[in-house]
């Protein structure tokens, strides 16, 4: 789509260089740990080595003797102010600091405040804690067993470890249809627990100004406004009312969902600052980050997909056990305890489907936050895309052919899925065909046959995913009751420059650039002269923040709407200046001109000046607008990915030879940024497919709790991604855009898993759970007697 605006204006469709980059490439970004306030002290946290244990005694005496240590804060300290527990976003409760028992390894036990980082660490070592180990439950299936110990003893009358049971669709219909189906494939799939591991860990500087009674918290958060409200709810009773709380989210070194929750460390730091009257800095280290912050996935899925012999899909039935750890601190919309998992019918016409999820408590840290994916969409997509491949192989059909046969055809959009979603738009076949052409699918299949004859193992994997993002319409979507709209406020200054503030918060997505381009697109003010601000709750309009690919669908739309409101007023002013009626004006980006007399025109800059110097009688001065955008529907980005792998028969190593990604995220604001988002998303899709996993031994000892064992891909493990696109605008979004930040993370894992299984299917391999480690592959090769 050719840009409508000139390179000077740089509206939608221009690959504008990012406005935020000059400070970043100079090392002048301002991240939380870069903030230093006068008199600032440092906090470090004592953590539990046990996954489940009674707290017998915490003795701070030795720690208080450590030079530089100012205070040791325990659950008892917080209990005095009733701050030792806090609510989670899912209306569960979570300990800030424990008073009776710890529920997972690395849980916060006490905090040490000291004059510098090193002294605080010295203090942490000197705090003596007596634990009495309790029986540990790490397996969610065992947790559901009748004889399992009840973990949440704090919950009066709780007699089991079930958090919730959720279901969607028509159970009877799906059962009946599956019974009728000529073919039914069934598979257990485990989507392991993983961690977003943004390169910047979490932290904050809490600054309570006693004189003004005002609390300012600079913190690593993707949702500053919601956090402010949560703080007001948690600490209202100790006098922290919302008008005297300011949350500032400075530059964020990656979020991916991990910086949505309120972690105990933030709350302790706030309490410490209020008590000490000094700014308190808390920056978690990497191992704390990997061991105690919220996790993603941990879904145990059993899926059944039915079809007729000709490959026509008939019905889908999915049962899932979700391991949420010791508390349900997921960041899902309130009415969706399993997030958008019901997108699991994917890109296919399925008349009947039923999905159910049971949330379970275990002795693990909180789970259920996203890993660069819209609420549980990755789990859903992995299930349907793996099942589709298994079905294809069982039917002896080409996986591409099976997909093309079952795709929802373009003419059926908007399409209502069996599980109740209304897909806004899509052309799935177009994307898959483009990917097949780009990678040379037919030739690859031929090559595969030849290589197999030579005993070589090569696989081709496809994933044709449909995402569901942009939460969301207020009729269904809220967090703690707050509707999931998002907002934008634009002010045009007399000289025709503008400032635009949003309720979201960029963590690398490039909002300062793309939002400016949206305003430029709608008002014709050069993007270079649109200052975008987010993250300061004292200045930005209220919004729910940036996660689940919602910024463009919600705040981006708000930006367009606010700009259009300004344009409407500008039209009136232009009409006044040109002494014609509004109807006689033609708008082109940046300029109103008189119909039939194009030489008579007023630029947006002329109008802006007039808005303050010569506005029409009876009209208020100024040129600004606010929009709180409540999306009429979600958006449904999609794409088709094809991955080619070669397998080392000696070691079981999987090498990605090529990976082609064709994405469709509707109309594109900045192609360069979209490409970058996809590169990053693909890499965060490959990581859990091949490398990353957090697991626990039977005693709840975390495995993979440091970068030694939690394997983030380097440039050497990462292939050179090939990207392409189709464009199917969203019919309901003001800009026709859909959001793209997470599509690739969602779409890539099944493409890779399908490729590996495709390479081994002829040996009788049906499934390999991710991460697909060399040993898992080698073991299969060994069993089938083909290992080198």
């Amino acid at each position: 789509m050719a840009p409508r605006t000139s390179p000077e204006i740089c509206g939608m469709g221009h690959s504008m260089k990012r406005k935020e980059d000059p400070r970043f490439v100079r090392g002048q970004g301002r991240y939380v740990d870069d903030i230093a306030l006068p008199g600032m002290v440092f906090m470090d946290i004592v953590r539990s080595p046990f996954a489940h244990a009674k707290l017998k005694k915490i003795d701070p005496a030795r720690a208080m003797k450590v030079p530089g240590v100012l205070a040791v804060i325990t659950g008892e300290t917080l209990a005095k102010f009733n701050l030792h527990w806090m609510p989670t976003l899912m209306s569960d409760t979570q300990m800030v600091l424990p008073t009776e028992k710890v529920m997972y390894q690395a849980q916060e036990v006490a905090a040490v405040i000291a004059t510098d980082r090193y002294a605080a660490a010295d203090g942490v070592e000197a705090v003596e804690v007596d634990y009495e180990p309790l029986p540990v439950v790490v397996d969610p299936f065992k947790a559901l067993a009748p004889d399992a110990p009840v973990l949440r003893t704090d919950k009066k009358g709780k007699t089991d470890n079930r958090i919730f049971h959720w279901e969607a669709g028509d159970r009877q219909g799906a059962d009946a249809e599956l019974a009728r189906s000529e073919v039914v494939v069934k598979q257990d799939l485990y989507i392991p627990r993983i961690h977003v591991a943004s390169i910047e860990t979490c932290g904050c500087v809490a600054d309570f100004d006693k004189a003004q009674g005002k609390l300012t918290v600079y913190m690593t958060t993707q949702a500053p406004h919601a956090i402010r409200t949560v703080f007001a709810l948690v600490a209202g009773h100790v006098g922290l009312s919302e008008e005297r709380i300011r949350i500032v989210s400075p530059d964020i070194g990656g979020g991916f969902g991990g910086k949505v929750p309120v972690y105990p460390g933030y709350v302790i730091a706030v309490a410490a600052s209020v008590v000490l009257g000094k700014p308190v800095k808390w920056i978690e280290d990497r191992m704390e980050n990997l061991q105690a912050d919220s996790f993603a996935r941990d879904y145990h899925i059993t899926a059944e997909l039915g079809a007729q012999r000709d490959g026509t899909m008939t019905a889908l039935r999915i049962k899932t056990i979700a391991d949420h750890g010791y508390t349900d601190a997921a960041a899902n919309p309130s009415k969706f305890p399993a997030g958008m998992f019901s997108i699991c019918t994917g890109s296919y016409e399925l008349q009947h489907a039923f999905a159910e999820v049971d949330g379970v408590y275990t002795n693990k840290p909180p789970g259920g936050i996203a890993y660069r994916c819209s609420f549980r969409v990755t789990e859903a997509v992995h299930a349907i895309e793996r099942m589709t491949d298994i079905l294809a192989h069982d039917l002896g059909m080409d996986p591409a052919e099976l997909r093309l046969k079952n795709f929802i055809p373009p003419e059926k959009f908007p399409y209502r899925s069996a599980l109740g979603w209304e897909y806004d738009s899509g052309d799935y076949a177009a994307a898959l065909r483009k990917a097949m052409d780009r990678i040379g699918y037919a030739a690859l299949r031929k090559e595969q046959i030849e290589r197999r004859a030579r005993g070589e193992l090569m696989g081709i994997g496809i994933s044709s995913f449909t995402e569901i993002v942009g939460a969301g319409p207020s009729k269904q979507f809220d967090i703690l009751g707050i509707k999931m709209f998002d907002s934008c406020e634009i002010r045009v200054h007399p000289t025709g420059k503008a400032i635009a503030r949003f309720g979201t918060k960029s963590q690398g997505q490039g909002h300062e650039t793309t939002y400016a381009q949206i305003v430029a697109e709608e008002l014709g003010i050069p993007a270079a002269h649109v200052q975008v601000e987010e993250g300061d709750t004292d200045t930005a309009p209220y919004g729910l923040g940036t996660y689940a690919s919602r910024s463009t669908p919600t705040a981006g739309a708000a930006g367009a709407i606010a700009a259009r409101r300004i344009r409407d007023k500008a039209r009136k002013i232009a009409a006044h200046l040109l002494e014609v009626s509004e109807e006689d004006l033609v708008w082109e980006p940046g300029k109103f001109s008189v119909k039939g007399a194009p030489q008579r025109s007023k630029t947006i800059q002329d109008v802006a000046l007039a808005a303050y110097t010569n506005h029409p009688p009876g009209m208020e001065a100024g040129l600004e607008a606010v929009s709180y955008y409540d999306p009429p529907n979600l958006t449904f980005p999609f794409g088709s990915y094809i991955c080619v792998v070669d397998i080392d028969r000696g070691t079981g190593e999987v090498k990605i030879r090529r990976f082609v990604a064709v994405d469709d995220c509707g109309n594109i604001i900045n192609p360069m940024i979209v490409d970058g988002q996809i590169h990053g998303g693909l890499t965060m899709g490959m990581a859990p497919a091949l490398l990353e996993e957090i697991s626990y031994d039977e005693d709840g000892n975390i495995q993979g709790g440091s970068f030694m064992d939690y394997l983030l891909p380097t440039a050497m493990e990462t292939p050179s991604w090939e990207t392409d696109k189709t464009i199917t605008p969203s019919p309901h979004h003001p800009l026709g855009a859909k959001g793209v930040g997470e599509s690739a993370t969602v779409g890539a894992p099944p493409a890779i898993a399908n490729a590996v299984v495709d390479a081994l299917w002829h040996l009788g391999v049906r499934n390999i759970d991710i991460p697909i480690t060399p040993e898992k592959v080698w073991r299969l090769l060994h069993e089938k007697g083909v290992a080198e």
Partner: protein
Amino acid sequence: MPFRIDKTFVLRAPSSAVWQFLTDPRRVARCMPGAAVTEQLDDKTYAGTLLVKVGPVSASYKGQMTFARLDAQGRSAEIVASGQDVRGKGGATMRLTSKLVERAPDETEVVASSEVNVTGILAQMGRGMVQDVGDRIFARFTDGMRAELEAPAAAARVEAAGAPVPAVPAAGAEAPRLREVAPPSAAPPAEPVDVLSLGADAAARAVSRSLRRPRFWFIAAIVAVLTVLWLITRARR
């Protein structure tokens, strides 16, 4: 993270002597230097602390041990022990059963079997080395026991049986190459002991210092610390 250490070995000593030894914490202790008893809680229970130093690593443990069972007729004993790192890095528990079989008047077979369970940072880093190091420690202990019960000259090679034993060079074999236990200068009570460098001759030296404290039960704790060392030095990557 539970694992087992099973060992069978033969001592050139009468079973009565071995039995007396194994049921006397103070004597048993001499074969595991580096610990201090803070108090005897009752006739079968002791509380104590342990300082371990392994190369650059040092850790301080506190814990308890109890004789869970003593069967003089059947010549079998069961000891339950637990330790906790005072720096809060983790803990370890151990249940050790030992049985004596008289092979000849002055030859006794000791069948020892222990279940060790470690928790905390070392258990996060993979179980493999814990087993390795456990076997290593056990070898140290048996050598110390030899030094106590047999003529030092007779210090022979450990015959490992039961669980597969990794190729840890037998302490006796490597003893000549091993470093001193500690600088002669410093020998305070409960002086930290360099476990890795503790060979048979070193053990004998430790014995000659005849510290009078139970230490057998600290095996678990030592295992823990050694593992931490091995794994954490990999923390670089």
